[in-house]
């Protein structure tokens, strides 16, 4: 009997304090800066184009193969407005398959993709799975409209996301070649 009274005491104490839960759809908890929602692409406001060059490194390293990218020559390079030789043509990301592992962010050499750390764009419910395959514009929307103010990025050059320091652009081609070899091995 004593034990049950003891247990009741705990219950009573808990009944007196404020609730620890939040009424979710109306009230939202503040997300930490590092929160990993789903990946989105970043928009380069200086050059008025995406950061993404379409190099396909993220597509190769995504464990669930949910990224498809194609690359094209950058028309702005010809016009002398940008230094990027190549630019992304089509970028498809299947949110239904993404497992939010952060690997695409980690391997991207151009810091073109980040994990969404806001509430917008991650509360997904649709009637059709196809609606969850986002294209380039949809992926860029967050960053372009300024909703994604402060994405979490590791400083370039420091052990970027742990795996290795980011390489300079010259070494980059070499590295990409090496990883292609590795992809087959």
């Amino acid at each position, binding site marked *: 009997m004593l*034990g049950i009274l003891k247990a009741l005491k705990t*219950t009573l104490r808990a009944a007196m304090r404020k609730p620890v839960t939040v009424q979710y759809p109306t009230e939202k908890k503040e997300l930490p800066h590092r929160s990993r929602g789903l990946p989105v692409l970043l928009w380069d406001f200086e050059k008025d184009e995406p950061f993404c060059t379409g190099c396909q490194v993220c597509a190769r390293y995504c464990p669930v193969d949910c990224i498809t990218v194609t690359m094209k020559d950058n028309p702005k390079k010809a016009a002398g407005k940008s230094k990027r030789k190549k630019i992304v043509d089509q970028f498809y990301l299947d949110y239904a398959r993404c497992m939010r592992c952060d690997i695409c962010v980690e391997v991207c050499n151009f810091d073109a993709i980040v994990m969404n750390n806001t509430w917008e764009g991650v509360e997904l419910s649709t009637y059709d799975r196809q609606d969850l395959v986002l294209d380039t514009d949809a992926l860029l929307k967050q960053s372009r409209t300024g909703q994604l103010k402060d994405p979490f990025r590791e400083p370039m050059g420091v052990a970027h996301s742990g795996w290795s320091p980011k390489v300079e652009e010259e070494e980059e081609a070499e590295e990409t070649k090496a990883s292609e070899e590795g992809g087959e091995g």
Partner: protein
Amino acid sequence: MATIDYTIPGEPDLETVDININVGPQHPATHGVFRMVLTVDGELVTDVDPVIGYMHRGNEKLPENCDYRQVIGYHDRTDYLAQFNTEHCFVEAIEKLTGITPTERSEYIRVILAELNRITSHLMFIGAFGTDVGIFGTSFMYAFRDREYVQDFFEEITGERMMYNYFRPGGVAWDVPDNFRERCTQVLDHINSGLKDLEGLIVDNEVVLARCRGLSRVSIEDAINWGLSGPLLRATGLEYDLRKAEPYSIYDRFDFDIPTGKAGDVYDRVLIRLDEMKQSVRIVEQALAGMPDGPIMAEGMKRILRVPEGEIYMRVEGPRGEYGVYIVATGTDKPYRHKVRGASFSNLSALRAMSIGNYLSDVIIILGSIDIVLCEVDR
């Protein structure tokens, strides 16, 4: 099953037969998609046939087509309640094979996170176990309130609430936030006060005592023969913990006890988990005091990790017992063979022997006391 041909005294024409009862695969008491075919004679269970495999996702085979970086994410999904412990096992295995030495700071970060993860896992156990015993919902709510604090803390560090993907061979993915120490101390305070609540709810509670004490006693010899590990093994009285028996990482630097039980019954298994949480708090406190500054990633890591030819079996003490990974590397960036030893799989195999002869309602408690994670059983 065999028909028993005896009749109830006084009712000469009534024949009794054993009947089969199917529990699961979708049943709240089976802790996941797990099915038990029970053969009952009245209320007494005469046979248990566990059916597993509903959660099989190929978590051992898939990594053989992934490079070593991608495998870490799959280890999170093997034991989804002890992700840091499983990641720890895998990265330690790779480090041993390649000869990378992780940095001091990252070792401390890993131990702190792995121990906190042990606490969240045990909290989950206490919550779910309370439901099995009959204090429906209550213990669940208390345990989850405290688990939530730790979970928020993990989210601040890694960005994810469940599948962290944070440890890397050679270190951790990125450094912890600046307010790590203060937040960690806060979290420990929450855990300490939460543990008091849980103890008040469970330890002396007559309902728990009546239902758990003396139930399904396991002797040391049986436990060893059945291949039990973790709290189930220690509840029998054997002091065996891989953190002490075969210290990996930096566990040899910390001062902590291994709680053991006496009777090997269900009640001991619960108490041991409560005690283990306290020991984990001790380890985290010590690690926090000793955590140095410095780099979080070993020098000279290549962008593509190629593991030299060789094989290794690495095991760690997860919350459920011995979690092991066996890797055969052939010098490429992918494992050639990748095998996981899940603690709950071996522990679950003893369910039949532990349950036969008990009442139907007690089998649910016995299953609960094993603390299975079906993703780890089926992989």
